[in-house]
C-alpha cells in the first residue's frame, strides 16, 4: 500500500494523524545529524496533550502517518456505520489481528470498523478487558479525528456516529451465537434462494456430460487448487442427486494422503493440531 501511494509531503502547520496516537500538528521540519548521518526530521505535536514525537521524513509514510480525514470521509464513515455490515468474527485471534491492522493502517474507516465490530459483538456478550480497552481507544481516536474532519466540537463528533450505533428511542438488540457463527456470504446466498439465483434455468447440460461430471470434478482439488464453489452446485442440480455428493467425497482425499507423509517426519505435529481445535471451539 505504502509503495504505491504518492509520497506524503509535510509542511509546518499541517494536521496529520499518527496511527494509534491521534491528531498531531507538524511543528517543524529540520535536518539533524544523528550517528554521523544527516537526516531530515518531522516534529509532530499531539494536539490532545502536546506530546512531541520526531519522525525521520523517509519513514513518515512507512509508519502510517496520514493527512487528517475530510468531510467526505466523515460522510463515508457514517454511511458505513449505517450499512447493514454488522458481522463480527467470533475467532478472537483473527479479530485481534485484523483490529490491530485496522487501527494502524485502516485510516478513519478502519477505526469505524473496529468500533462497529466491537459494538456489535457487545450485543452478544460483554467485551473482555483487552477488547474493551481497544474499543475505548478506537472510539477516542475516531472522535478526535471526526472532530477535526468536521471542524466540530468532539461532543458533536461523538454524537454523529453514536446516533447511528445507538438510534434514538430504540434499545440495542440482543444477539445470538448463531447469528455470528455462519459466514456472511453463505447466509446471503441462502437468503436469496436457488430460484432467484436461477441456477436451473440458465445452464443446460447434456445427459452424457452430466453423467461423467462427477469424476472430473475432483481433478482440480488433487492438484492443490480449490474448485470453485458455484460450479459444482450449478452443474449438479440438473444432473440430479448423483453428482451432489462428489465434492464432499473428494474433500477427505487430500487429507488422507497428507497424513502418512507428515507422521514419520513430525510425530508431535498431529497431537498438537488436535489440541488446538477444541480450544478454538471453547472460546467461540
Amino acid at each position, binding site marked *: 500500500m505504502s509503495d504505491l501511494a504518492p509520497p506524503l509531503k509535510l509542511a509546518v502547520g499541517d494536521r496529520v494523524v499518527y496511527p494509534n496516537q491521534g491528531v498531531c500538528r507538524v511543528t517543524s521540519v529540520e535536518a539533524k545529524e544523528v550517528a554521523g548521518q544527516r537526516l531530515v526530521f518531522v516534529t509532530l505535536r499531539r494536539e490532545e496533550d502536546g506530546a512531541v514525537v520526531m519522525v525521520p521524513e523517509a519513514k513518515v509514510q512507512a509508519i502510517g502517518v496520514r493527512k487528517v480525514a475530510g468531510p467526505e470521509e466523515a460522510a463515508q464513515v*457514517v454511511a458505513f456505520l449505517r450499512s447493514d455490515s454488522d458481522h463480527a468474527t467470533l475467532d478472537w485471534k483473527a479479530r485481534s489481528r485484523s483490529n490491530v491492522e485496522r487501527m494502524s493502517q485502516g485510516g478513519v474507516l478502519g477505526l469505524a470498523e473496529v468500533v462497529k465490530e466491537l459494538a456489535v459483538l457487545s450485543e452478544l456478550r460483554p467485551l473482555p478487558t483487552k477488547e474493551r480497552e481497544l474499543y475505548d481507544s478506537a472510539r477516542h481516536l475516531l472522535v478526535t479525528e471526526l472532530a477535526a474532519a*468536521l471542524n466540530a*466540537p468532539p461532543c458533536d463528533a461523538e*454524537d454523529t456516529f453514536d*446516533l447511528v450505533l*445507538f438510534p*434514538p428511542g430504540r434499545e440495542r438488540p440482543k444477539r445470538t451465537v448463531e447469528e455470528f457463527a455462519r459466514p456472511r456470504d453463505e447466509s446471503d446466498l441462502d437468503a436469496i434462494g436457488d430460484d432467484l439465483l436461477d441456477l436451473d434455468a440458465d445452464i443446460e447440460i447434456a445427459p452424457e456430460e452430466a453423467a461423467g461430471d462427477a469424476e472430473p470434478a475432483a481433478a482440480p482439488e488433487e492438484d492443490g487448487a480449490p474448485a470453485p464453489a458455484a460450479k459444482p452446485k450449478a452443474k449438479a442440480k440438473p444432473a440430479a442427486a448423483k453428482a451432489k455428493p462428489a465434492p464432499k467425497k473428494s474433500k477427505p482425499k487430500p487429507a488422507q494422503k497428507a497424513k502418512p507423509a507428515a507422521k514419520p517426519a513430525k510425530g508431535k505435529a498431529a497431537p498438537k493440531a488436535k489440541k488446538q481445535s477444541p480450544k478454538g471451539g471453547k472460546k467461540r
Partner: protein
Amino acid sequence: MIRVVTLDPHEPAAVQKLCRLLYQAFGVGCDMAGDMSVPAGMTAPFDAEALAMAAPIPKLYADDRVLYLTSRPLKDRALISGTAPTHGFAQYGGQRALITTAGVKDLEASLKLVGRHAMHQLGHCWDLHHCLDPRCAMYPPWTPSFGANDAIFDTFCREKSEQKIRLAKS
C-alpha cells in the same frame, strides 16, 4: 472540585442534593457557586454549545469543572447523521458542562435523572466517552434505558469508574 452554577431560578435544596449526588459519584468536592444570568441576546431554545461557552464563569482553579443548570430547553443539533436530541453539552477535556432541566416538573422528584445527565456531561469533561453498558451514566442519553429512572442507580460502569477515579483525582 465541581462548581454548580444555576442560570435560572432553581430550588436551593434540590441543587444541594444534586451537589451531594455528584460528590458521591465523582469522589471530588462539589458545591453551589451561585446564580448567574444567561448572556444578553440569547433566547430559548438555546444553542447548547454557544450558551456553555458564553455563560459567565465563576472563580475556578485549573482542575475545577463548572456545571451550568438551566430550566429552559436546548436546541436539537443537526448533525450529518441526523438530528441529535440535546440534553446538555460538555467541553471534552475542558472545564464547562451544561444541562437542562426542561421537561422536569419537580427537580427533587426527578433528581436521579437530572443527576445522571449531570454525571454524563461532567464525565465528558474528564475525557470519558460513551459506554456500551446501559447501566452506566455514560450510556448515550437519548436511549430509552438512560431515562429508566428508578431502576438504575446514578453510577458508572466498572471500567468508567476506574478511568474516572484516575482522571478526576490526578
